[in-house]
């Protein structure tokens, strides 16, 4: 298998089809595990930073009040603030994910930055309950075992003998952390329970139409030459080659144009000129596409040059 074919196969493994209620199959790409991990890291850093910032703010506020009023019962106030902070960080840790994933983008800040989002697996509406479910499970999958691992490894280091409990917590953590590696759709346990998955959220600009210029009519503006290709000359290529050519034309890199023009000339038995590659390729592209699209309308498709 060539490298290109391997890449194609890997891509194919990430592709899924989602059927909308209108009956249109939309291709979607599953987000890679590393992207999701990166998104999670970003989110955790944001939550952590907000937490730290809030506690510093609260503390300095309290200290300022103390200095102003000379309050006697400082310990009680500080303890109260401590409880407030415990509750705030609890709400922050759990509310952050739910709040953002219920928003119009269906993605936390980290997911937005990495270009992914969550979606309902069955192609239906992403319900609020699903978002809540997948994020409640996050506690069990991640925060709870991770907290236990940290606490118990500290206790073990201090000679408290929590070895077996630490092992259990580590296994617990690993079972859920590795969960996405053992199913086809890369679901974590929360996705499984909630009926969701994480997909790429593509954003594309509409590119120029290809057949507007003079070149696509076969006439070169620079040289005035007319390029016409016969049926058997156009018959050598299929859709795959056409779309490769489209990419080359859109990228418009001079040396790539030259190489591709030479390759095509060699294939169809033309003498290759120099300096008018773009016009030649535009003409070839337009005529090849016209031919392939005509065949397509009659239900005849040609995937690539081998078929």
């Amino acid at each position, binding site marked *: 298998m060539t490298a290109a074919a391997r890449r194609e196969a890997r891509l194919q493994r990430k592709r899924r089809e989602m059927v909308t209620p209108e009956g249109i199959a939309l291709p979607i790409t599953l987000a890679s595990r590393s992207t999701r991990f990166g998104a999670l890291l970003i989110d955790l850093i944001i939550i952590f930073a907000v937490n730290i910032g809030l506690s510093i703010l609260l503390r300095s506020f309290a200290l300022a009040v103390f200095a102003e009023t000379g309050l006697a019962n400082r310990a009680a106030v500080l*303890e109260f603030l401590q409880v407030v902070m415990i509750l705030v960080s609890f709400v922050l840790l759990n509310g952050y994910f739910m709040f953002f994933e219920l928003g119009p*983008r269906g993605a936390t800040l980290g997911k937005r930055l990495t270009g992914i989002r969550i979606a309902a*697996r069955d192609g239906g509406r*992403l319900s609020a309950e699903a978002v809540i479910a997948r994020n409640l499970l996050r506690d069990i999958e991640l925060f709870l075992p991770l907290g236990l691992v940290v606490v118990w490894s500290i206790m073990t280091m201090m000679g408290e003998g929590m070895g077996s409990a630490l092992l259990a917590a580590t296994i617990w953590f690993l079972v859920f952390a590795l969960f996405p590696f053992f199913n086809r759709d890369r679901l974590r346990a929360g996705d499984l329970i909630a*009926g969701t998955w994480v997909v790429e959220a*593509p954003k594309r600009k*509409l590119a120029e139409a*290809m057949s507007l210029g003079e070149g696509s009519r076969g006439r070169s503006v620079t040289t005035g030459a007319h390029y016409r290709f016969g049926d058997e000359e156009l018959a050598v290529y299929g859709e795959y080659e056409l779309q490769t050519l489209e990419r080359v034309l859109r990228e418009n890199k001079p040396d790539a144009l030259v190489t591709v023009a030479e390759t095509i000339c060699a294939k169809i038995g033309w003498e290759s000129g120099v300096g008018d590659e773009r016009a030649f390729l535009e003409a070839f592209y337009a005529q090849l*596409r016209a031919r392939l699209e005509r065949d397509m*309308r009659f239900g005849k498709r040609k995937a690539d040059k081998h078929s």
Partner: protein
Amino acid sequence: MKRPTLLFRKKTPEAPVDIEQAALRSDRFRLKREGEWKRLEEIVRRMESGRLRGIADEELLELPALYRTAASSLAVARETSLDAATLAYLEALVQRAWYQVYGPRIGFIAWLRRFFGGGWSAAVRAIWLEICIALAAMLAGGVVGWLLVDSDERWFYSLVGGGMAGGRAPGAPVEVLRQSLEGQDHAGGLSAFAAFLFSNNAGVAILAFALGFAFGIPSLLLLIQNIALLGAMLWVFHDAGLAMEFAAWLSVHGTTELFAILLAGAAGLHIGRSMAFPGDRSIMAAAARSGQRAAVVMLGVVVMLIVAALLEGYVRQLVAAAQLRFAIGGAMLAFWLAYFFLFRGRAQGDAR
């Protein structure tokens, strides 16, 4: 370098291209419709950025129609066009619009309002069967704990870990036991204690829920084990003639906390049961459906545990009279039962 201009103004729209100028039929198809696609893209972009107020009502009404136009454009283009860039654009556009058309209808705050206004109690009622099973398991666990310690006091130590017992062991002096039930006359140091209790109980409840994955069996075992511990403890106090005092001490927060743990176990069971008996759905679909319902219950369990921790940390320590403790515990239990089973509220779409 851009030429400096004095006025900021809207970008002049690109001059529309002459459609007939395009050499290819599929490009003409595209040029005819791309205005609508771009309108859709603009509306979707503004919805995604969350500025709903910036969108006129007519545009919102247009969204479904534009979405369907783009979707049918995509269906046609797939059969007639080989322009890969346009196809990719349309696929991404339809996908983005689809998320907006079929996105969650309500935000977090609105959902919370619906949750307290009936969604929660509807979800609890929906898993009544599992609640009954979990209740039976808890009662059985309590009885087993009592009987075990009654038959042999050494069972107590294997049921109750050393840390939990805190001097409350079989044969302990009555005074020690009585002291452990007494209140305190001030609230100092109690708030951190309450926060600790909350995270501890939340751990047990979440575990009871999570273990539902393994077809609910571990959820049941966890319930039985936890309540067996309670039964053992009750026996110790009964042995010292303090059963009533212990029950009163426990009831203040226990009615809320045990109810929460019961619901958590039932939610876990619900997932486990629907995975074991998915009916005519696939296991994955069954798990997703029950998981969403169980998640609603679990969010409620977290709320109940916060209430329980407050009761345990403050009220129980401050109120020492047994009758008053019973009254508070009983009132809480009555409140939860009424809220879950009598209060219907406006639960739309939750109790599927």
